């Protein structure tokens, strides 16, 4: 059988898509957020959802790896792997057995700005999961065996990350762009810094950073307001009211126009590129989001993907994205191309960067992007975990409990003029800092 023997007929596939900006209604019932205040006064956001008899609770403390003392990089990360390795009267194996035997997923993670965590369990294990979380946060043991074991695992991962060209490229890029700011340090730790971290450092981190005034909480699942309030009190009620004072300076973005080539024996060069961007609370944020989506944010449909991947086959993956941090905003991306042709990919990135800065985006691109950004947002919220993570992130970024109602209006309000102004202001091809790892042909370092 051949293709032409199959179904004929003109399907007019473009018809629906040619409508102007589509208006997406908020799935109001599914995303009704309640702010719950516990008996002890801890606030958290709740979405009740009984689709499956389980719950997810996510939380975060403001202040994490970027506050690691100089010479003790990796401290926050180290703590994140030790909280479930023994707490209260339970040793490491006993604690892990309580989690595994009752299918309680407990996770912690240390980012530069936030220390985050979550528990997910079937509803019948909610009291046990909550107690284990309280112990992990308020009474972690840091026994010698798990401390030595986890330290060895981190030291191995420090050596192993050198096997990945992407890590080396990203790190060199960060050092060039952030210079002395903590964002430029190796916040996962180095061999020397991980060896320098002692039990007293771990304990101090917990005492200083886990506190109720820097805490945000959200829960999603088969749980009501009263139960959520009790859970928050049980899990977080023992924590101190206030975290130790901490502050970071704003990052000064450097390295404009710099090219760093790290010679390594890989058949394919990996390049990380970018420059300063925009912070999350800036009024132009949504316009910048739209412009970047057109340039390099939209999977296979972006300009970068079209020119570099689809037309020329230079890369499997190429993208750019806005990264918003507490004290910096950056626009950064990555591409991987065979050593012989990486220079061609980088030249195209510069050209497309220059073109969007000069001409902005088209009316059609603006309307397509609005449709995508407003419609796809809700399609991502397809598990309790994803929804709980979103609720924490909305709180961390101070976007307000009505953010889900406002988000699509904010995106749809962006005008073509605004995108052009923002494109011209933000995208600066001459400022691109580029870090390449491999044996790139035709790419040389430039200070």
């Amino acid at each position: 059988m051949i293709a032409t023997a199959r179904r004929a007929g003109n399907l007019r596939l473009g018809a629906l898509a040619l409508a102007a900006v589509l208006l997406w209604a908020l799935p109001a019932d599914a995303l009704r957020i309640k702010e719950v205040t516990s008996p002890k006064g801890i606030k958290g956001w709740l979405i009740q959802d009984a689709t499956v008899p389980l719950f997810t609770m996510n939380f975060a403390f403001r202040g994490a790896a970027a506050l690691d003392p100089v010479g003790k990089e990796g401290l926050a990360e180290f703590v994140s792997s030790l909280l479930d390795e023994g707490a209260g009267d339970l040793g490491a194996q006993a604690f892990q057995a309580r989690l595994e035997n009752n299918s309680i997923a407990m996770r912690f993670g240390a980012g530069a700005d936030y220390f985050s965590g979550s528990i997910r369990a079937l509803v019948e294990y909610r009291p046990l999961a909550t107690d284990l979380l309280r112990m992990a946060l308020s009474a972690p043991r840091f026994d010698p065996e798990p401390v030595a074991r986890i330290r060895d695992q981190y030291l191995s991962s420090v050596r192993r990350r050198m096997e990945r060209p992407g890590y080396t490229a990203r790190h060199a890029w960060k050092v060039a762009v952030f210079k002395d700011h903590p964002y430029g340090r190796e916040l996962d730790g180095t061999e020397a810094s991980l060896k320098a971290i002692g039990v007293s450092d771990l304990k101090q981190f917990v005492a200083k950073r886990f506190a109720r005034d820097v805490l945000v909480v959200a829960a999603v699942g088969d749980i009501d307001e009263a139960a959520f309030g009790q859970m928050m009190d049980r899990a977080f009620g023992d924590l101190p009211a206030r975290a130790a004072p901490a502050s970071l300076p704003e990052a000064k973005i450097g390295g404009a126009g710099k090219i760093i080539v790290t010679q390594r024996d890989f058949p394919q060069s990996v390049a990380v590129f970018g420059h300063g961007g925009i912070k999350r609370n800036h009024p132009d944020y949504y316009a910048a989001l739209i412009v970047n989506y057109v340039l390099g944010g939209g999977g296979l449909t972006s300009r970068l993907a079209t020119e570099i991947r689809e037309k020329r086959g230079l890369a499997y993956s190429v993208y750019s994205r806005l990264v918003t941090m507490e004290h910096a905003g950056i626009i950064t991306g990555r591409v991987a191309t065979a050593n012989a042709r990486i220079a061609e990919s980088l030249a195209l990135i510069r050209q497309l960067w220059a073109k969007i800065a000069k001409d902005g985006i088209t009316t059609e691109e603006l309307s397509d992007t609005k449709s995508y950004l407003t419609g796809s947002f809700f399609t991502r919220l397809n598990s309790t975990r994803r929804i709980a993570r979103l609720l924490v992130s909305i709180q961390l970024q101070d976007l307000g409990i009505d953010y889900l109602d406002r988000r699509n209006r904010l995106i749809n309000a962006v005008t073509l003029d605004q995108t052009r102004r923002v494109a011209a202001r933000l995208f600066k091809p001459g400022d691109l800092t580029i870090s390449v790892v491999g044996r790139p042909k035709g790419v040389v370092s430039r200070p």
Partner: protein
Amino acid sequence: MIGALAGFGAAAALPPLARAAVFNPKTFTLANGLTVVVIENHRMPVVRQMLFYRVGSADDPPGKSGVAHYLEHLMFKGTRTTKPNEFSKIVARNGGRDNAFTSADATGYYQTVASGRLELVMRMEADRMANLVVDPKEAAPELKVVVEERRSRTDNRPAAQLAEQMTAALFLIYPYRNPIIGWKHELEKLTLADTMAFYRKYYGPNNAILVVTGDITVDQVRPLAEKYYGPIPSGPKITRRANIAEPPQRAARRVILRSSRVREPRWSRDYLAPSRGQGRGRRADALEMLDVILGTGATSRLYRALVIEKKLALSVGTAYDADMLGPTAFGIYARPKQGVALATLESAVEAEIARLLAHGVTEAEVMAAKKRLLAGAIFARDSLRRGASAIGTALTSGQSIADVENWPEYIEKVTPAQILEAARDVFRIERSVTGLLLPAPKSADGGAAAKKRANTGGGPRPGRGK
């Protein structure tokens, strides 16, 4: 017609977890042979369409490895009525997301959209099932994209290169021995004609399964499926790999990869193992239990013995994927602590296997593993993706929907004796490949140490069945 699924005759004896069916799918079949499965989940006004074809890289013709995956890429390159790359653009501008995958047994295409956009993506997916047209000018750069994908996934990663060599050694003739993305020298020579021939052979509705999950009912899906997929004529009847089976495996294999790019050594072993698709009784259920008891998590036997007690390993675990059409692997992997030879690590793993084969597993271990696996069936219902993937994977690997829905019941029935029997059948050194990933002797950090490890752990040696 709608199949009433998963009646549990023996439910009374089971704890509550096992009595719940997993995804409660509804299913019907079109006259042209397309199987349609609907899983309702009304949490959000969103649906996910997944179209699975019963064809994967293990169906690549000899000498043309990578063709199933290359076709997956070309499926985005236009039809008689859509331009190249227009598919994803239309999905995106309708507020949706789309992608595709190729595995050894299946090729899948999926979109997540607002419920009201289901008709659009069904129309488009049906269109490219019937009307794919690829301009050679589009096919040529896309082949380069796949070669770059191979560089990113495999050639830039020594561990992935070793895994590729181990798989090729594990299967003597079964086509799983070829990488999904293809061997580079064959991949570079694939032609558009080869790929279109593959499309015409395998991409008929009779060889596909449509899974729709989310805020939708079977009564809403049926007329849409009839309208868009219904008119597509059946393709040729496909008999999948009917005459392909592994010959007896009589010799243990060792595969060693040394690279200056490797900083940390790694030990792994794959044993040839039965899958659900092979239908060999319910041994796959016992092996899934064994996977949990022996090597999943910080309280598993191997982690306790090698990491906590003997302090030889940084990490250790097992991996077993039962949902394959052909033979599969039961894998064990470990990273040594600095200064521990891979040979020492290997002996310690083998000692644990010997202990298992001598004494079996305990009733308490079996109860705990069942509880974990059965809870996993509930967690799986939390996302749209898991249900659609589980059903699609089952139906493309020789299983039925009932196999998925009855899975908790099968797991509940596994006994310690069955686990021991399955372990005895699988842990046979003559049916295994051991892989060593080692730094090159002259690597930057401690060439002497690397050399010592290579000498003690690297040389070929006779298999030691235990």
